[in-house]
């Protein structure tokens, strides 16, 4: 990078940081200085920060500390997400590669995928209760669908000329799949995983809000019942941060695994 470019990038970063600070300053002004909203409805950023710090070790009022909530949510969402990816990606690849699998599974799948994962919550609660399994199943469903769709599209978009190259060099159909189709679909598969992660994190919070006794979604739902706006805001911020960290991990994996991307 040239010096000028570096300077430009640095200036952009400064602007971004200023904007973020501006947001918090505005929030601070509205709540603490101008007192436009009562504290129970919209707490000041300082109050939220304070709640966040004390919540780290205090179990009141919802029965668990913040790390316990985070752990509960992460466990369920990663469980559901991993199962969704481990089953969804191979299934999508299979459907795209073998026409028979496509014919058998596509109609069922096309119907199931139109039902939003959140609509599964009531039936899951009836069938499986409000434990880890029920929530993980909902997360699984919401992670599974984008994995299948994107892997399917990825394999289907393998360039014909790449298949030809494999064929003229004498690759068998299985070798073609593993050496040509899957590597060329890898960027699509990763897009699928990222979408899955986002939607599984989202449906997890929804599932916890509707039926649960721990987790970040449960915490903010309880915050609403107790009129603890500060607790809700802490929960939302933590949900956002956790989501960002998970996406960053996947981005890192993609960078390491997908080579020579355009």
């Amino acid at each position, binding site marked *: 990078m040239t010096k000028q470019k570096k300077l430009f990038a640095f200036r952009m970063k400064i602007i971004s940081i200023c904007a973020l600070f501006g947001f918090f300053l505005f929030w601070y002004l509205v709540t603490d200085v101008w007192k436009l909203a009562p504290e129970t409805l919209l707490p000041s950023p300082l109050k939220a920060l304070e709640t966040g710090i004390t919540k780290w070790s205090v179990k009141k009022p919802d029965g668990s500390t913040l790390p316990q909530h985070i752990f509960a949510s992460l466990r369920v969402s990663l469980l559901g997400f991993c199962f969704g990816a481990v089953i969804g990606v191979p299934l999508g690849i299979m459907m795209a590669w073998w026409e028979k699998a496509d014919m058998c599974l596509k109609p069922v799948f096309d119907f199931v995928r139109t039902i939003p994962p959140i609509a599964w919550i009531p039936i899951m609660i009836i069938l499986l209760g409000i434990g880890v399994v029920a929530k993980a199943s909902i997360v699984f469903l919401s992670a599974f669908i984008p994995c299948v769709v994107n892997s399917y599209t990825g394999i289907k978009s393998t360039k014909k000329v790449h298949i030809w190259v494999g064929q003229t060099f004498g690759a068998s159909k299985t070798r073609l799949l593993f050496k040509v189709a899957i590597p060329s679909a890898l960027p699509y598969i990763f897009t699928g995983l990222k979408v899955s992660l986002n939607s599984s994190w989202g449906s997890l919070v929804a599932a916890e809000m509707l039926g649960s006794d721990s987790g970040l979604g449960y915490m903010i739902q309880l915050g609403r019942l107790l009129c603890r706006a500060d607790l809700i805001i802490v929960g939302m911020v933590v949900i956002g941060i956790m989501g960002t960290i998970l996406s960053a991990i996947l981005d890192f994996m993609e960078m390491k695994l997908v080579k020579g991307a*355009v």
Partner: protein
Amino acid sequence: MEQSGKLKMKCQNLSKTFRTPNGSFEVLKDLTFDVRENEFLVIFGPGQCGKTTLLYMLAGLEGCTAGTVEHNGQLVEEPHHSRAVVYQTMALFPWMTVKRNVGFSQKVRKVDKQKREQDTQKFIDLVGLTGFENSYPVQLSGGMKQRVGIARAYCGDPDVLLMDEPFGHLDAQTRYMMQESLENIWENEKRTVVFVTNNIEEALYLADRIILLTDCPGQICKEYTIDMPRPRSLVDPEFLRLRKEITQQMNANESNSLSAGNRAEMEQK
């Protein structure tokens, strides 16, 4: 010319018709020709006369509507690693380095690793890409990509090399350079080559023999044996004479087919 050379491939009464929603569309009609061992055969013809289709039929990627293709006396029905193809563009695997792209054909056939690495390096050196072994295709220029394509085709140790306008998408200067390199490579590592192009200079520069195709449906119009010494000069009087002759022949075909096309259109109305 090696008219006496051993017979490599034999095409008999080859025809191809594509069926489209707007009716059938005859691309190639009744082609009969031989490909001889170690000759550089150029199939030359105007724009859309089915040259690529013909090449894919030789490769076994495309079936023929009528007629047969034989390779070493065996009927060509599907792709085989003894017939390698160099494609127009974008045929390299973007997720593999140059080295792995070139070694791909041997890897697929599970050739022992030591021989594979040896061959890979040999052909990378041959096409002049030493030092770029670990680059990804996206980091290479158009000409370099086609060099990788040629090395990859060679590395599979094919019996016949089929090249589908490999330099069609390169700028004029690079194209001249690539033609020179290809000739060098071929002189060093003699193979039977079938090369498709719509560029007359390229055809004359490289060919031992040129088969001139007519416009749709592609038929063999004339065959030229080129026995000018190599490397050839683009301004050699003999070169220019042949160039003129073939261009005139092609223009004559074109005006014929144009008027025929017009007639057909009129009849449809």
